[in-house]
C-alpha cells in the first residue's frame, strides 16, 4: 500500500519536473519561459521530496523529516530567483512576442 503511494507521488513529481523543462524549451519568449521552471518544477520537487520522506521513514529505523527542509527552502527561494531573473530581463529590454498585451505598462528604468 505504502509502496503504491510512494510510486504515485514519484511519478507525478517527475511528470511536473518534465513539464517545467518542456515549457522551458517550447515557449517562444523569455517571459513565457519563466512560468515553467518557477511553478511546475518547484511543485514537482516538493512532491518528490515528500515521496523520499515517506520512503526513508518506512524503510529506515525511525522517522526522517529532513526532506521538508529542502522543499520549504525551494518554495521560499523560487519566487525570489524568478523575480531577479525577470528584473534583469526587463533591464536588458528583451523582446516579448508580438501578441503580448500591455507592453506600455513597463516603465523605463534608471
Amino acid at each position, binding site marked *: 500500500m505504502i509502496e503504491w503511494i510512494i510510486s504515485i507521488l514519484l511519478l507525478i513529481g517527475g511528470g511536473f519536473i518534465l513539464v517545467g523543462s518542456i515549457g522551458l524549451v517550447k515557449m517562444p519568449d523569455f517571459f513565457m519561459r519563466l512560468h515553467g*521552471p518557477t511553478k511546475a518544477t518547484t511543485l514537482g520537487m516538493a512532491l518528490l521530496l515528500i515521496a523520499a520522506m515517506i*520512503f526513508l521513514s518506512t524503510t529506515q529505523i525511525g522517522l526522517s523529516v529532513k526532506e521538508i527542509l529542502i522543499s520549504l527552502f525551494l518554495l521560499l527561494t523560487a519566487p525570489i530567483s524568478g523575480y531577479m531573473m525577470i528584473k*534583469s530581463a526587463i533591464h536588458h529590454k528583451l523582446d516579448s512576442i508580438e501578441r503580448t498585451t500591455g507592453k506600455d505598462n513597463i516603465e523605463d528604468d534608471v
Partner: protein
Amino acid sequence: MLETVILIVFAMIGVSLLLNLWRLLIGPSIPDRILALDTMYINTIALIILYGMSMGTELYFEAALLIAMLGFVSTVAVCKYLLRGDIIE
C-alpha cells in the same frame, strides 16, 4: 515495483536535464541561460534524492541541501551582476 518506478523517474529527470541543456546551448539571451542553469540545479537535487532512495540511505541529503543553497545564491549573484555590473556595491 518501486525499483522500476525509481528507474522511470530517473529517465524522466534525465530527459528534462537534456532539455535544459538544449536551452542553455541555444540561448538566445543571457537571462535565458541563467534560467536554464537554475532549472538544472533543481533537477540535480532531484537526481541526488532519487539516488539516495535507490541506495536506501539518507547520507546524500546534506549534499542536496548544499546544492540548493549554493544554486540559489549563485543565481541571485549572476542576476545582480547583470543588473548593476557589480555584485557588491
